[in-house]
């Protein structure tokens, strides 16, 4: 057997995988692994089979949602680096979301120093610094809170090509921040593009001052002690990262001052310009990059002065290039006769969507192999044909009008821009369909272009719009961000639209906070650009965010009122009126107001049908919502009827694999579940699962809501074993996904399953965690929390934790008492509370009253299924109605 003598032995590879090595040894292994395939495979195997974490690793473990750190509540981990983990936390005092950086433990003395430095930073205010709000210690570790910046790192920002002028401007801003900190005596010590944020607002801010190393003001012994302790996690992290921008004296482990930052800054600047350093900057940067600190500038100021003075050679080059291109294009234009020039405009459209693209798209659709691919292609192609024809004819008309000077230059330019934008959209769509995968094919047939795209749009904006239409949310987000980052290339209206698209793509991915920021930006930009349509949609989306996702119905209602007010400013308010009614119905249903939701959905449906004609495909969401509204109003017969109508319309218009059709099927399944027709509900849920599998594969994230649905269904049907089996699949799949949102359901579902299984000891701690997590997300006053609190109470009583049972049950009563919608919309919550009370004997009289109300509501709704369940449960719990029993 041969073996490379240089290979580390397997014990060390396992230790590396377990993070049990000191930094130098780990780095040596990493270097070896980069060139040795065998060792890399061994390492990968050890990393995969990790089931126990060594103790020092535990401090890197994430805090769960809902954990309290000082006055802050953890919402979500948003990232981690060598020095710590960053969380999005909620600050109840100031009612805002802030970023909290929890540093790895560095020992008491180092903690002291970090706190000192944080306080120095907190005194600094500069537009190019991320402000530090607060600092403290928690469980022996230092944390800092700072502004929650929505945006990207300079490193990420640089991955899209930037002009030299843009890069110089970004560095000038970051440098201004650095200089301000230096003047206050704070040194960064780890300046690199990763530590600079470019906000969604375009503002550049430097963060993470002084966190990488000890401060010079403290004694050098401390630094030595830190270095001699190779397993100190914060140091390991710092060294594991690339010390690419470190100044030589830092590499040598010596104390570093502001001149080290100067070195790092210029190294990063030089690299970011990719060798295109303007000539006037060259000597300045060369001096800043001197090996010895004494040979560099005393402060960063001369570097910044040179930056400010540097003519952007890049821009000049770019301008020259644009000129050359314009000349070339103009030349061609002039060579063609005017008549042929107008033909050429049509040909241009054909180049975007012509026979070649058509063949590619067809092949792409066929290769997906889904049964509905052929119909999907036909629909897609027809839609694109129609758009191409419309654009071509409009362009020809415009061209000919121009020849005979029918239009003023301004009008001509506006129309030409508009047409160019639509053509870009067409190209983006053709491109998406040409590389179609199952997901795109499933979405195909959506009306591919929005009506009346009036503004000229940049390509990114077009791509964002097209991606959103085809439900490619990640791509939509990227494209919208790109459009916003190049904000100067956009008109105010486009900027507003880009922010709206960004907000929507984030909202649909449940990235709530960034979505809120983007949507608010869309509101402001819409205001500036006088785009009432953008503002209307942003308000509707904000309402969805606050009301439907975060269950803050008050905020949702306010947003809807704003949306309605915006309608006044629209030239054709009727177009948006039905959308508003649909949104209002959704909110009413989520708030438990069934009859109100029904009325709104019916009004919206009527309006849409009047405008678009009965049987129009866009009636589908209205019908689905009507079904849902009837269900909430406990009118299951009408609910089933509407859901069936929706399903039929959807099948006709889009075919079985379409996402909107599946949505109708899910609604139908839910209605059948509510009716107690579990077999039917199960068949429908399984059909949804089969369709989802066929379209996206069994391991696609889209399977998760389907599996969640099925788990609830089986548990509700009393098949706890089946519920657990389905949920195991959910968990296995969710654990492979990077998106942590899905993991938030683990405790809830496993707790409810365990409780249904009679295992209160397992259920109780899970439900405790679930309630805390949910409270942190949706707030403490939402009556829907009863669905968790009542099972928690039951589990606590059964597990013998009586005081928690009482607390939870007291909150259920309190929430029900203050619920705004009529109790009929909350009958499930009332019955759950009654059960918990009757079983435990806590507040027995009120429990009995609730049970009586539930009985009355179901009797009034002729809901024999729920009535039967209630009577059967009461029969099994004779003590519940035993008058002699006294409340404990």
């Amino acid at each position: 057997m041969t073996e490379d003598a240089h290979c580390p032995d397997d014990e060390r590879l396992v230790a590396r995988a377990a993070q049990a090595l000191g930094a130098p040894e780990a780095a040596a292994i990493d270097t070896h692994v980069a060139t040795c395939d065998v060792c890399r495979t061994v390492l990968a195997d050890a990393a995969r089979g990790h089931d126990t974490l060594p103790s020092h690793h535990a401090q890197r473990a994430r805090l769960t949602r809902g954990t309290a750190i000082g006055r802050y509540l953890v919402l979500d981990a948003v990232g981690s680096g060598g020095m710590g983990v960053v969380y999005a936390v909620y600050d109840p005092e100031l009612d805002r979301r802030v970023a909290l950086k929890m540093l790895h433990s560095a020992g008491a003395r180092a903690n002291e120093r970090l706190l000192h430095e944080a306080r120095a930073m907190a005194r600094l205010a500069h537009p190019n610094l991320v402000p530090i709000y607060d600092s403290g210690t928690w469980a022996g570790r230092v944390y800092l809170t700072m502004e929650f910046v929505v945006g990207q790192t300079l490193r990420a920002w640089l991955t899209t090509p930037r002009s030299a002028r843009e890069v110089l401007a970004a560095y000038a801003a970051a440098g201004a921040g650095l200089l301000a900190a230096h003047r206050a005596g704070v040194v960064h010590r780890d300046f690199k593009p990763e530590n600079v944020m470019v906000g969604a607002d375009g503002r550049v801010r430097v963060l993470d001052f002084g966190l990488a190393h000890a401060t010079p003001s403290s004694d050098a012994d401390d630094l030595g002690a830190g270095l001699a302790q190779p397993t100190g996690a914060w140091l390991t992290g710092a060294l594991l990262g690339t010390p690419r921008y470190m100044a030589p004296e830092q590499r040598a482990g010596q104390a570093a001052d502001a001149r080290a930052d100067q070195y790092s800054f210029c190294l990063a600047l030089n690299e970011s310009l990719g060798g295109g350093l303007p000539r006037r900057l060259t000597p300045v940067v060369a001096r800043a990059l001197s090996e010895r600190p004494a040979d560099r500038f005393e402060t960063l100021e001369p570097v910044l002065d040179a930056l400010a003075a540097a003519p952007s050679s890049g821009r000049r080059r770019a301008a020259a290039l644009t000129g050359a291109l314009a000349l070339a294009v103009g030349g061609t234009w002039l060579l063609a006769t005017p008549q042929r020039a107008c033909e050429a405009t049509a040909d241009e459209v054909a180049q975007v969507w012509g026979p070649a693209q058509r063949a590619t798209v067809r092949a792409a659709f066929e290769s997906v192999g889904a049964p509905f691919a052929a119909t999907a292609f036909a629909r897609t192609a027809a839609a694109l044909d129609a758009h191409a024809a419309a654009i071509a004819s409009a362009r020809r008309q415009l061209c000919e009008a121009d020849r005979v000077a029918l239009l003023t230059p301004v009008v001509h330019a506006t129309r030409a821009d508009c047409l160019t934008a639509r053509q870009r959209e067409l190209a983006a769509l053709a491109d998406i369909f040409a590389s179609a995968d199952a997901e795109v094919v499933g979405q195909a047939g959506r009306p591919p272009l929005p009506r009346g795209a009036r503004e000229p749009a940049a390509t990114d904006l077009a791509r964002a719009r097209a991606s959103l239409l085809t439900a490619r949310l990640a791509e939509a987000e990227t494209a919208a961000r790109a459009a916003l980052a190049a904000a100067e290339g956009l008109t105010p209206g486009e900027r507003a639209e880009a922010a709206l698209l960004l907000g929507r793509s984030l909202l649909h991915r449940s990235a709530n906070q960034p979505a809120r920021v983007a949507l608010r930006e869309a509101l402001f930009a819409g205001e500036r650009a006088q785009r009432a349509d953008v503002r209307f949609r942003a308000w509707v989306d904000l309402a969805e965010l606050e009301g439907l996702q975060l269950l803050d119905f008050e905020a949702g209602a306010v947003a809807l009122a704003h949306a309605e007010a915006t309608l006044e400013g629209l030239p054709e308010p009727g177009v948006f009126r039905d959308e508003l009614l649909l949104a209002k119905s959704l909110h009413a249903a989520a708030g438990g107001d069934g009859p109100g939701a029904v009325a709104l959905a019916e009004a919206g449906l009527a309006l849409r049908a009047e405008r678009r004609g009965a049987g129009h495909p866009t009636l589908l969401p209205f019908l689905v919502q009507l079904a849902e509204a009837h269900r909430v109003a406990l009118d299951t017969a009408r609910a089933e009827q509407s859901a069936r109508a929706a399903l039929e319309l959807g099948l006709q218009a889009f075919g079985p694999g379409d996402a909107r059709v599946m949505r109708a099927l899910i609604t139908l399944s839910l209605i059948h579940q509510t009716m107690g027709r579990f077999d039917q509900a199960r068949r429908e849920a399984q059909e949804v699962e089969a369709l989802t599998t066929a379209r996206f594969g069994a391991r696609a994230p889209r399977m998760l809501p389907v599996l969640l649905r099925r788990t609830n269904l089986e548990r509700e049907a009393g098949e706890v074993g089946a519920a657990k089996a389905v949920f195991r699949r959910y968990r296995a799949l969710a654990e492979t996904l990077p998106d942590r949102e899905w993991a938030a359901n683990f405790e809830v579902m496993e707790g409810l399953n365990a409780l249904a299984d009679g295992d209160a000891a397992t259920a109780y701690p899970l439900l405790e965690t679930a309630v805390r997590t949910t409270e942190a997300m949706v707030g403490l006053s939402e009556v829907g929390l009863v669905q968790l609190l009542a099972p928690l109470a039951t589990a606590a009583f059964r597990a013998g934790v009586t005081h928690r049972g009482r607390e939870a049950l007291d909150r259920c009563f309190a929430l029900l008492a203050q619920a705004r919608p009529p109790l009929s919309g909350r009958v499930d919550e009332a019955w759950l509370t009654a059960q918990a009370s009757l079983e435990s004997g806590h507040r027995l009289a009120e429990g009995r009253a609730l049970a009586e109300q539930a009985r009355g509501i179901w009797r009034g709704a002729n809901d024999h299924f729920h009535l039967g369940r209630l009577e059967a449960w009461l029969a099994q719990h004779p003590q519940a109605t035993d008058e002699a029993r006294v409340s404990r």
Partner: protein
Amino acid sequence: MTGTSGWAFDLPPSELEAWLSARDAHGLDAARRAELALTCACARGDPRALAVFEAEFLPWARQAASRFGDSAFVDEVCQQLRRRLLVAEGGRAPRIGDYRGRGALDLYVKAVAVRLALNALPPAERAVQLSDEALLDVPAPAEDPELAVMKLTYRGEFKQAFTGAVRALDEEARTVLRLYYLDGLGLAEVARLYGWSVPTASRRLASARAQVAAQTRALLGAQLKLSPTELDSLLRLIDSELSGGGLASR
């Protein structure tokens, strides 16, 4: 998880003490110390300890080796593993003494098995399994015909540019790319290995992909003198190569 309950073998406390000291292992948790006691007893040839090893740890080796060959191959690897870990050879104490408790024993056994299995593979086959060229065979989910033609026509040049581009990555990016695509580590596992968050791992991976794509494009463009459209098709090919085994299938 391997349970430590019910392990019974003879080991004088002083022996264990010396064994732990030699491995600087006193500070480890109980599970690791129990595993070290087992390895100590195995090295001493205690038959009951060897039986525990055989029953509780060899199955991990078996499982690890089964990725690389049939059952005869797996048997052969296990035999080699017993010889390597449990038998003194050429004046050297049994290699199980190398285990120092910095990571679980089952993982160590697996690691040894994986190395033995890889070394037992014929070199050509090993190269197919492990080298960057294997990245090229990651199937694209919905390959369009244009790309298929491109792939066939320029396979040689493409391969050269592609592997060149992978090699041009910095060490870490290259390893991350390979761990993810070739070794099938999940994002969470890659993140854990490097002490990153999952989003960071995802970003690094995306940036490595982007670098490979850009570099391949540059190398190919120079080599083939393709038109921009053809080059764009190729670029999509590169992207499809790297997204084939990507998130969707994991």
